[in-house]
């Protein structure tokens, strides 16, 4: 007896849901795509961004990430020099998201293709992504830490 089509689909779904790593990758890639879509939809020339700096509204002081949306929109449009004038760290944060989008895809493919090396793959991913994260967000972290102490 051949298994029914619905049973095959259900089995695949259950197997997929048993892989948290793949779900995390898909979710993170989705969030990054949403960020890129946000940067692409809102024009830096019209300056109609719905997200305002809450930090500046509360304290009256501009924060280290002010102008990041503008910077992202300009980078997406290829105006990189202008992006630096809006926020000096826009490029490195953008590169973090771009690299993560690429790494999520690559690591997911490797995860499915080579099931024997899954543990090593996750370890390499965690360490690599952690380093990239710290390099990209270091100025923001410094501003938060210096504010506490």
């Amino acid at each position: 007896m051949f298994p029914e089509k619905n049973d095959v689909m259900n089995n695949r779904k259950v197997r997929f849901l048993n892989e948290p790593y793949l779900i995390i990758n898909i979710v993170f890639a989705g969030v990054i795509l949403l960020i890129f879509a946000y940067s692409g939809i809102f024009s830096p020339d019209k300056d109609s961004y719905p997200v305002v700096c809450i930090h500046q509204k509360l304290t009256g002081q501009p924060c280290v990430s002010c102008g990041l949306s503008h910077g992202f929109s300009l980078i997406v449009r290829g105006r990189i020099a202008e992006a630096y004038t809006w926020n000096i760290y826009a490029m490195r944060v953008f590169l973090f998201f771009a690299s993560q989008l690429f790494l999520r895809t690559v690591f997911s493919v490797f995860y499915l293709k080579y099931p024997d090396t899954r543990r090593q793959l996750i370890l390499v991913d965690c360490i690599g992504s952690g380093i990239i994260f710290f390099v990209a967000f270091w100025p923001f972290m410094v501003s938060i830490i210096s504010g506490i102490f």
Partner: protein
Amino acid sequence: MEEVRNNSGQNLGIAALVTAVITFVLAVIPCVGLVAIIPGIIAIILATVGLSQANRNNSPRGVALAGLIIAIIASMISLSQIFVAGKIAQKADKWPNNIQNIINDVQDNVTREIQDNNVSIKIESNGDKVEINTNPNKKDQEKTLEELEGGDKAKADTLNKKADTLQKKTGNVPRKK
């Protein structure tokens, strides 16, 4: 016989993970890090409920657990940002008073410096030159005033006498300006 595992709590776990990842991305950006606490709490609740359901029905807990860990880290980052913003806002309340004090200090310094210096004003118009030199030194001014009040009393008296004799001779009353 294969072990039967259902996916109870998995959907909640995925929802928690999505919310937690969004929270994390928001939390590390100072501009919006303050509001990240709201999705952070939602993610923690979703993950906890998903985890308890998964425990009850012996279904996989990985996604819910990952969501819970990411949500807790993101919420902590967001909380630290609220703390930082509070500190800055507290400092900002004191800034107007500090600025007022600085302005007063500068004003006092400038006044003190001007008092001990000579002031020279030159006006030039159509070849005519007018130069006014003054020494606003307080001590000098006080000295001059004392001299005027004390030493010139006799001169002032003689001037009055002359005016009186002139009035008697002519019969005119000197006009006051």
